[in-house]
C-alpha cells in the first residue's frame, strides 16, 4: 500500500505585521525545546489556559446557574421584568449580547497574553 499524499499546512506570511527579528537565543531555545524553551511555552500555555478557565467559570456561574436558580427559587420562574417573563427575557434575549461582550473581552485578553509572550521572546 502506498502512503497517501499528505496535506501541507500553509500559514499567512503576515506581511501586515513585520516585526523586528526576535533575539536569536530565545528563538533557538524555543525551536529546540531545551529547558528555557520549554519553560517559555509552558508559561504561555498556562496563561492562556488560566484565561480560558476564568471565562468558562463566569459562563458556568452566570448561565449554568440559571436552571438551579429556577429550581431553588420558584418565584424567579414566573417573575415579570420589563413586561416580559424573566426566563424568556434572559434566555430569549439578553444572553445573546452577553456572549458577544464576553467574546470581545476574551479576545482582548488572549491577544494581550500573546503580545506579552512575543515581547518576552523578542527581548531575550
Amino acid at each position, binding site marked *: 500500500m502506498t*502512503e*497517501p*499524499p*499528505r*496535506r*501541507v*499546512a*500553509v*500559514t*499567512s506570511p*503576515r506581511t501586515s*505585521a*513585520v*516585526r523586528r*527579528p*526576535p533575539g536569536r537565543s530565545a*528563538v533557538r531555545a*524555543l*525551536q529546540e*525545546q531545551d529547558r528555557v*524553551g520549554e519553560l517559555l*511555552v*509552558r508559561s*504561555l*500555555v498556562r496563561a*492562556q489556559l488560566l484565561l*480560558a478557565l476564568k471565562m*468558562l467559570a463566569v*459562563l458556568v456561574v452566570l*448561565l*449554568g446557574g440559571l*436552571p438551579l436558580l*429556577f*429550581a431553588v427559587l420558584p418565584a424567579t*420562574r*414566573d417573575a415579570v421584568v420589563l413586561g416580559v*417573563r424573566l*426566563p*424568556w427575557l434572559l*434566555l*430569549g*434575549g439578553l*444572553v*445573546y*449580547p452577553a*456572549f*458577544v461582550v*464576553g*467574546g*470581545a473581552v*476574551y*479576545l482582548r485578553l*488572549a*491577544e494581550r497574553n*500573546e*503580545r506579552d*509572550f*512575543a515581547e518576552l*521572546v*523578542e527581548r531575550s
Partner: protein
Amino acid sequence: MTWLPVAAVALVVSATVGIGVYGLRLARTTSDFLVASRTVSPLWNASAIGGEYLSAASFLGIAGLVLAYGADALWYPVGFVAGYFVLLLLVAAPLRRSGAYTVPDFAEVRLGSRPLRRLCAGVVVAIGLLYLVPQLHGAGLALRATTGSPVELGAVLVTVVVVVNVAGGGMRSATFVQAFQYWLKLTALAVPAVFLLLAWQGDGRPALAPPTPPAFSAATTVDVDADVRVVLPEPVDAVVDGERRRLEGTVELRRGSEVVFPAGAAVPHVERLTAASGLEWARPLSGAGGTDHPLYATYALVLATFLGTMGLPHVLVRFYTNPDGGAARRTTLYVLVLLGAFYLLPALYGALGRLYAPELLVTGATDAVVLQLPVAALGGTLGALLQALLVAGAFAAFLSTSSGLLVTTAGVLSQDVVGRLRGSVRGFQVATAGTGLLALALALPAARLPLTQVVGLAFAVAASTLCPLLVLGIWWRGLTPPGAAAGLLAGGGLSAAAVAGTLTGAVDGGWPGALLAQPAAWTVPTAFGVMAVVSRLTRDRVPADVGRTMLALHAPEGLGLADRSSRGSTARRT
C-alpha cells in the same frame, strides 16, 4: 397557491447552483477545491459559518420545540451559541495554528498515530451522517407542509442539488453559497416576524401565556397525514370525515382523515405530548409538554450543546479558511454576533404558534410551525408570500448545512478511507456521491423524527468524542494515543448506544428514558475520565515532540519561530 413555495424553492436552488458555478470558475487546484485556498476574510467567513451552522433544526426545529415544550426549549438556541463561545475560549486559535484541516488531521499532528487518525475519521463520518439525516428529513417535511408533495421528494431534491454542487465546486463555491445563505435565512425569518407581530398587535395582543391550555380560536380543520393517537383534555363534538362524532379520552385518527374542531374547543394533543396551560408552558422546569426530570434534561442539554459544537465536523473545517490563529478568534467573535441576531427569532414563532397554529399539536408536526404561521395568522396573499419566503429560508438551511456536512464528511472519507483515489479531486467527488446516497438511504425510512432532538443527539455524540480529544489535546501535554483512543471508544460507544435506544424508542419515560434522550451528562464526563486515566497509565507513550507541538499550537504567528508549515506535515512526512 402551491406554486408560490415551489417557485421559492426553485429560486433558492438556482441561486445556490448559480453561485456554485461562479465559484467553480475560480477553483482550479485541489487546495482551492477543499479550503477555498484560505483567502476568505473574517466577515465572509463568519457569514459562511453562520450559514452552514443554522440548519433545519435552527430554522424550523427550535420554534417547534418551543411550541410544544415551552421555556425549557429556549436552552437549545442558547446552547447552540454558547457552543461557539466555548469553542472560542478553548479551540479556535490553537486549532487553526495546528494547521489541521479536520479532526483526524489534528489527531495525527498532535499524537502522531495513524490508527488513531482512522478512528477519528470513523467518528467524524458517523457524526456527519447523524446530522445529515434530519436535514434531509426537514426538506421532505417542509415541501410536504407547503405543497402536499410526498415526504421523499424534498429529501431527494436536496441530496441531488448538494451532491452535484459540492462535487462540482468544492469548498470555494460552498463559502460563497453559505455566506449568501446566512443572510437569506436571517431575512426570511425576520421579515415575516415583523408582520406576525403587527398582526398580533392588531388582534389586541392576546395573552401568550394564558392560565388555560391552548384552544382553537376559530373552527379548525386538521388534515391527518399519518396515523396518530390523540388525547383530548375534554370531550369535543367534532366532524370526522363529514360525520359528527363526540371525541373523548384517547382517540385514534387514521391517515387521510379530515377532522373539523369547533371554535373554542380545547386542543387535543398527540399522545407523546401532554397538554399544558399557558402558565406552565411559559415556566421553566415545569415539564410542560411531558418532559420527565426537566432539571436533569436541561443540564444534560446544556453540556451537549456547549461542548458538542466544537466537535461538529463542518464547524471545524471552517477555521482552516482563516489566515492565522488571531483571525480565527476574530471570525468566531463575528459568528457570535451573527448567531445571536438569528436566534432572537425562532422563539417568537413558537410562542405565536400556540395562539395561531395550535392544531399542529394534534398531529405533533410542530416542526412545521414556522411555515404554517403566516398563513394561519395573516392568511391571504400576504400570508402566502411570507410563507414562500420562509420556505426559501428553510431550503437555504437544508442546502447549506447539508453541503457543509457533505464537504467535510466526504473530505475525511476521501483522505482516509477511499482506496486508490485518496486525496485526489476525483476521490473527493466519489466520496461526496457515496455519502449523499448513504444519508438519503438512512433518511428515507426514518418516518417522523423530531428534527432538533436528532440534532441534539449528534451534539451529544460530538461532545462525548471529539470534544475531549480537542480540549485535552490542546491544553494537556500528558495525552497519549492509547488514552485518546480509549476515550473516543468509551464516549462514542456509550453515546451511540443512547442514540440507538432513543431513535428506536426502545426505552421510554422515567429515568432510563431521560438518561438516554439526553446522554451527554454521563457520557461526556466518562469520555474525559477514560481519556485522562488511560493516558496517565500509558505515560511512556507521550509523544517526544509534545513541546514543539504545544509551541506551534499556542505561539502567535510572526515571531519567526515556526517553520510552522512543517509541523505535522513535512516533519512527519514518511
